[in-house]
């Protein structure tokens, strides 16, 4: 519950969009319309894997015109800790899932004069929603979408159909790569850029933007980290008086939740800062994987983001 209001949905449709991506239509279980959302929002999907709870954030692609369903896209990741495999193998039409209210950590900047949207692979899901919103507002925009090959371009046909020549596609197998140094220098002042995709691509695009002299305020990205695994350790929750073990493929937050403690969270991907927790003491080394804490905060050893960060050592004591 600490993630906010929860909504029960039923899977209404599953589409094998590419060999590794499935698109799910999540329908309101109550029959009431699902909340309207702003482009760039995600929901956290909660899966019940035989008593073991997995929660993953997924960007919202769209909301049906009648308001009764959302679409999300899920890439099957080979080193999945269970979430994407569960969605691909265990979820079928009729399955019930629980989602949070939409949360937007990747919003369009409405004062922007123009918007350049850049997507790689499954990173297209928020970009798809952003392009739709910009079209409906008659705002100037362009879309750059990089995919492995034609069979992997799950969203390419739909994007072209909806946005025509505003879309430019890049196929890895045809050696087409996004040339950031060509894309950025001739944009009008006041243009904002948004990128979502693999870590390396995001870094390259942002670096290109800075090299082209763009202000950092005009460069936006969203990276959801899957919580990296690591050596197991134990966590002691001082207020609750509980000690729990964090498994090698489990996140600190998941272990805390499994111990029955309702800890705060929002994005579960190292971005929003909601799960920041005070560290009372630790033996070993804190492994900070988030994009939220400052370098000073990380070095201080007094704060940790439980959703993606962990301990390389024996025991961590938290103020929970």
């Amino acid at each position, binding site marked *: 519950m600490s993630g906010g209001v929860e909504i029960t949905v039923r899977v209404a449709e599953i589409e094998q969009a590419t060999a590794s991506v499935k698109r799910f239509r999540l329908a309101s279980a109550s029959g009431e319309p699902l909340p309207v959302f702003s482009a760039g929002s995600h929901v956290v999907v909660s899966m019940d894997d035989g008593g073991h709870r997995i929660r993953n954030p997924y960007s919202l692609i769209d909301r049906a015109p009648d308001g009764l369903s959302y679409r999300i896209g899920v890439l099957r990741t080979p080193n999945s800790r269970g979430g994407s495999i569960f969605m691909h193998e265990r979820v079928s039409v009729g399955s019930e899932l629980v989602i949070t209210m939409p*949360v937007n950590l990747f919003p369009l900047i409405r004062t922007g004069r123009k918007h350049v949207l850049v997507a790689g692979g499954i990173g297209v899901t928020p970009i798809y929603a952003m392009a739709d919103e910009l079209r409906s507002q008659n705002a100037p925009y362009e879309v750059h979408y990089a995919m492995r090959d034609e069979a992997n371009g799950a969203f390419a046909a739909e994007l072209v159909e909806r946005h025509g020549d505003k879309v430019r596609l890049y196929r890895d197998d045809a050696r087409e790569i996004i040339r950031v140094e060509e894309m950025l220098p001739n944009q009008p002042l006041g243009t904002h850029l948004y990128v979502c995709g693999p870590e390396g691509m995001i870094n390259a695009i942002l670096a290109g933007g800075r090299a082209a002299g763009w202000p950092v305020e005009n460069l936006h990205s969203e990276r959801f980290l899957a919580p990296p695994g690591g050596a197991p350790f134990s966590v002691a929750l001082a207020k609750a008086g509980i000690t729990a073990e964090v498994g090698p493929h489990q996140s600190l937050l998941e272990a805390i939740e499994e111990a029955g403690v309702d800890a705060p969270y929002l994005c579960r991907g190292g971005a929003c800062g909601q799960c920041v927790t005070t560290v009372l003491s630790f033996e070993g080394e804190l492994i900070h994987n988030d994009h939220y804490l400052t370098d000073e905060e990380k070095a201080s050893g007094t704060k940790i983001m439980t959703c993606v960060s962990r301990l390389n050592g024996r025991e961590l004591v938290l103020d929970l």
Partner: protein
Amino acid sequence: MGLQFKTETFRDDFTFSNSPEAIHRFPFPFDSDSYMYSVNIEQHMPGPPKSHVEFPIDIDEHYVAEMQDRAMVLKEDPLRCQALPHMLTAEWDLVELLMESMSKHYPEHFSLTKDGDRWHWVNRPLGIDQRFTFGDTATLPYPPMEYVTRQCQGDFALIDQRNDMLFMDAGMITTQADWSLDFDIGMSWTEWHGPVPLAHDLGIMDRALKFLLNLQQGRPVRRLNWTMTVNPRLDTSPENYHKWGVDRTTVTPENVGDKVHLRVELQALWRLPRSNAIVFSIRCYLIKMSELVTIPKWGRRFPRILKGLPPELAEYKGLTRYRDMTIKYLEQFDDGAPTSPGFFPD
């Protein structure tokens, strides 16, 4: 049973007063005998029946008179309502929030029917019957925010969120405690809170900003703020300081009970769904000292609060000139007995 709307004024002859029911539901903002700033934010959940927080948007006996006062303010000074162009989506979000809440909780006074994007709004107290297309500004007689806030009690600011900062980019502000939308429009959170004393040093503004940046859809929050006003004047704006500033010199031991008012703002914040903007509502409640003391607990507590107020706060709230006279009046009603914890009357 519907509300009985009063005929009263907030200017000139100042005929405003509260019925006994309105006094009882007044949002008295002190839960103990001393006051200091705190973030004091809580979830905006439905409160006790008949209280000011029973519903998300509170409509009361002053509704019609307040809307007439707002119309007069706007006629004299249209700049009390302004919206930067990029806030249009947020304006429509606000239309939806207010119309849905008002029609759901006060069905005898307001109704909303929808056929897709074609909406039909009926406001019986103000005699309005409007059909329009949601999202199409040309189908309303005013821009969307102005249209709906001419029909809803409380000031409203629409706040855009960009690059982890909040910006005051639209608003309908006619019942303010001495701040100006025309001055603040376009400013960031840190700019518009610049004048607040003490709170910055306490780190309150930074913590509140961090909290609001993560404000979630479906989880509105609220807080109470307070000041004092001489005469029941809703429009205590900087623009009209020449009209009301002098009121502070007119308080005498004979008139203090009727002239001096506690002014409480129920401030609520919602994350808006289409725009990802935040709406900040500032709903003003006024109560005369002579009305306040009819609740014995409040009559005991309020003079104790005023006596303990730090001088910077008294100055910021503009009550230095008449504080002592007010304390003297209120002390007649404080027998020194202990007060029970919490806001509500015993």
